[in-house]
């Protein structure tokens, strides 16, 4: 293990160039002879391509290549390969790509798009999940049965792209008990746009029979593999490298526009740059999905939750994508936080004729936590118990069973609630509102996880005493690649973190990696890096022991030296040992690999899940105070507090930065970031004017307490810290606004018009007629009948 404490507020090595405007993101790259590309997109939500003629466009000046569906034979997806690169015959959403053009200038490429002749016969569209689940609804994928299944186990039928279920215990018996109150709540949330400041961008070239894709992504290996599938080439013919990424938040956790540029580069023989316009980003970003949720619980008057059932409908848009995976997460988010005597949950990813949705920081968790925590407050109110006391009584503790029957380790949430009490009680009480505004406060809890999975790392020890870390990790802004990873390697080798060189992601240089997301960078890439560094350390210590004539176990690596423990200044410098080792045995390097251990669930509990149990749970407790203006419906956040389970904080200052930023993104989601879809199937918010992200005047400084010591298999006891801060913001704000107004909050965002409607009692109770009354009637396949086969 490491001799040097890894905890420090290491500064970012990339900050100075970012502050000077020198950093070249993908959108800033410029290669000699580079062409500019643009994509022709459908302007109807559903239709049949009757005619497509690119020849008039091909004759225009400057046009070098045009590619269409004929150039991309493959299909890709998560769970099911349902997604072609270009619309083939059928249009399934407004904005779906039809053709791509490369030309000498962007203006020429755009002129060529306008010259492509395309005739589309409109077809009936299902724009909402209610439309899609109606009897006789038009099928978004009439041939859904024919798709290649990439993971067995999910139930599918018609517009239900994927269905995952959890059943543990006898829920019917729990609901039939004479001593319980049945509490039912319904919720609806809209989409959220990431608004990553760097749009999806790519520069592709075709060299020596291979594609080189330079792209703004979180998943270099995902891009490599999906591009190869779509283009029908071996994955080894695709190389992906990643410059600094200008914001991800999950947007770049999936394939985007890379294959267009790759195809155009091959067709033209020139490098091709393709950058989404902001409008394209607004209309076709892989949004956090809209969802409809119904929860029912059977709770005793003493506050025991004996049964819970829920139906969660997730809009995946025209293609399954991330939502198919995310059906898994309901078990761990909506099914999280609390001990449940029995539980049954169904999560359904539903096809609609709208832009596909995707991953966004704490995907699924944000709205399920909102729903769960509002439901929890409704339960507490019904049985006349203090909501905080109810939470303290029921939060998961050591040895408790989660929804899927996994056994949770250690008491974490309860001491975190205590920590929040201390934080709140030590703060000055807010001044009484004397302006007629309504005051509300709430404390909410949340459960998230670390998306473990395969990562690889190599550490090359250089003769000058520096080390080079080679991984497929990407720096998306969170700092993991420039702070925690070099800290881990440096602490293992006893060298300054500034002397650990971090290689930018290149699939030709580093081994497979799932990607940067799901809070996994410090954990998975960190574990692989730690293991690689430990191999280097072992080799160096062996050589040093010969040089110093001391046993390796008596040696320590610290302050750039390998020396005898307890005798500072003895021994040799790391550089001397590395130089000697290189001359004697050849250069020193180490490799490391990591993947999750796979915590067991209870047999038979889950069907259609990608992850049955969570290897590393992450918990969060949020508390906020709000003032609601009864005249305008405006909600002001007075203060905000976070207690976050981080395992061990390697860089507390960097984590604080992630929490402040994540909470503010959550405030946008809770209060004013709203995406709506018009009757034409198009997203109505096309830019910053209509999509309102938080500004400097909207935010408050978040008061933060990092909770350390919860068990984690992460390196040095770490957990992911950058993803989770957004988790319970929607929940905390909604509960506080409900407490301030005395109204039932069922929808987000809480825009002034929506709050005003509530205050004036003009908002009818939310009805979700497309969720069947009886839980089992919502399933396309009974939970137990067909487990593991289709």
């Amino acid at each position: 293990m490491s001799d040097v404490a890894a905890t420090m507020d290491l500064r970012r090595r990339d900050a100075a160039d970012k502050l000077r405007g020198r950093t070249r993101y993908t959108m800033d790259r410029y290669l000699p002879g580079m062409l500019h590309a643009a994509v022709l997109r459908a302007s109807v939500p559903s239709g049949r391509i009757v005619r497509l003629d690119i020849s008039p466009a091909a004759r225009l000046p400057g046009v070098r290549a045009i590619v269409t569906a004929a150039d991309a034979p493959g299909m890709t997806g998560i769970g099911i390969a349902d997604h072609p690169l270009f619309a083939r015959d059928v249009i399934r959403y407004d904005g779906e790509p039809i053709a791509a053009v490369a030309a000498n200038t962007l203006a020429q490429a755009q002129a060529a798009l306008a010259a492509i002749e395309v005739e589309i016969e409109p077809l009936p569209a299902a724009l909402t999940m209610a439309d899609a689940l109606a009897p006789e609804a038009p099928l978004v994928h009439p041939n859904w049965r024919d798709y290649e299944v990439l993971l067995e186990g999910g139930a599918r039928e018609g517009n239900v792209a994927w269905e995952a279920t959890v059943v543990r215990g006898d829920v019917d018996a729990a609901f039939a008990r004479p001593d319980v109150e049945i509490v039912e709540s319904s919720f609806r949330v809209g989409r959220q746009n990431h608004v990553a400041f760097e749009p999806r961008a790519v520069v592709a070239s075709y060299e020596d029979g291979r594609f080189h894709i330079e792209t703004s992504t979180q998943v270099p290996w995902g891009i490599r593999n999906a591009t190869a599938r779509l283009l029908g080439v071996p994955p080894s013919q695709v190389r992906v490298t990643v410059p600094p990424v200008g914001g991800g938040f999950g947007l770049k956790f999936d394939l985007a526009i890379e294959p267009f540029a790759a195809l155009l580069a091959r067709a033209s023989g020139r490098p091709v740059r393709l950058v989404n316009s902001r409008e394209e980003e607004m209309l076709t970003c892989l949004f956090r999905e809209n969802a409809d949720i119904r929860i029912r619980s059977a709770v005793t008057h003493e506050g025991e939750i004996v049964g819970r059932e829920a139906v969660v409908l997730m809009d995946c848009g025209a293609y399954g994508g991330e939502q198919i995976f995310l059906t898994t997460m309901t078990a761990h988010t909506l099914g999280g936080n609390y001990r449940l005597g029995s539980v049954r949950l169904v999560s359904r990813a539903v096809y609609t004729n709208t832009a596909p949705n995707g991953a966004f920081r704490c995907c699924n968790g944000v709205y399920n936590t909102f729903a769960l925590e509002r439901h929890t407050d409704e339960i507490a109110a019904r049985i006349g118990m203090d909501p905080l006391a109810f939470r303290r009584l029921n939060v998961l503790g050591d040895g408790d069973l989660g929804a899927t029957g996994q056994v949770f380790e250690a008491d974490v949430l309860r001491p975190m609630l205590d920590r929040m009490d201390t934080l709140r009680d030590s703060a000055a009480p807010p001044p009484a509102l004397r302006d007629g505004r309504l005051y509300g406060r709430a404390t909410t809890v949340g459960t998230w996880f670390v998306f473990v999975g395969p990562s690889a790392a190599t550490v090359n020890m250089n003769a000058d005493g520096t080390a080079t870390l080679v991984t497929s990790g990407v720096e998306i802004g969170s700092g993991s690649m420039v702070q925690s990873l070099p800290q881990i390697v440096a602490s293992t080798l006893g060298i300054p973190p500034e002397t650990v060189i971090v290689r930018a992601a290149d699939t030709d240089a580093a081994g497979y990696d799932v990607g940067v997301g799901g809070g996994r960078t410090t954990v998975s890439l960190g574990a692989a890096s730690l293991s690689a560094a430990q191999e280097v350390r072992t080799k160096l210590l062996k050589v040093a022991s010969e040089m110093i004539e001391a046993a390796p176990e008596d040696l320590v690596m610290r302050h750039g030296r390998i020396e005898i423990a307890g005798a500072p200044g003895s021994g040799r410098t790391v550089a001397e040992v590395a130089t000697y080792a290189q001359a004697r045995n050849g250069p020193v390097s180490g490799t490391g690999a990591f993947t999750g251990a796979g915590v067991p669930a209870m047999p038979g509990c889950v069907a259609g899940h990608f992850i049955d149990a969570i290897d590393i749970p992450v918990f969060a407790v949020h508390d906020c105070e709000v003032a609601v203006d009864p005249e305008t419906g405006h909600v002001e956040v007075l203060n905000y507090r976070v207690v976050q389970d981080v395992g061990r904080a390697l860089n507390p200052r960097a984590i604080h930065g992630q929490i402040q930023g994540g909470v503010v993104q959550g405030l946008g989601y809770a209060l004013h970031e709203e995406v709506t879809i018009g009757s034409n199937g198009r997203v109505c918010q096309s830019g910053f004017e209509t999509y309102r992200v938080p500004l400097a005047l909207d935010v408050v400084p978040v008061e933060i307490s990092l909770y350390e010591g919860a068990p984690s298999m992460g390196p040095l006891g770490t957990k992911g810290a950058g993803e989770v801060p957004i988790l319970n913001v929607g929940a905390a704000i909604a509960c506080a606004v409900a407490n301030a107004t005395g109204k039932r909050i069922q929808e987000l965002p809480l825009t002034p018009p929506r709050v005003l409607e509530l205050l004036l009692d003009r908002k009818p109770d939310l009805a979700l007629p497309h969720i069947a009354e009886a839980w089992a009637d919502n399933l396309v396949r009974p939970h137990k009948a067909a487990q593991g086969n289709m």
Partner: protein
Amino acid sequence: MALSLTVNGDHLASTADPTTPLVDILREELHLTGAKPVCREGFCGACMVLIDGTPRPSCLTPAALADGCEIRTVEGLATQGQLNRIQAALDTSDAVQCGMCFPGMVVSLTHLLATTPDAVREDIRAALTGNICRCTGYERIIDATLLALATK
């Protein structure tokens, strides 16, 4: 007729159409990619440059309107390789995340430091109205500005 631009002290000519957004000339002709065309509608502030000392969104500035003016981009703010006061404070405070908004932030805050040396927290928040950040939640940028104001 060619446009005559002075960018970070260099005198340059451009034959671009006079209505071309200044940001495109800076980025595509001069390869000064510090200014980021994030929204192209003047909301986000990531393309902010100083034109005769005043911060302007270069996406909404037709090149002809900058003809003959003194243009300073984020690349021209660090003199002799040294970060200026606000850049140094943002670096010290670990304020930077993805970094895309910072070129514009630095331009706006450099102007604030020069023109409002006695700015308080509320002035800084108000001054950032035209600069959006999606990563940081702003507080550390505000703290860094206070730090920069205190280090004269």
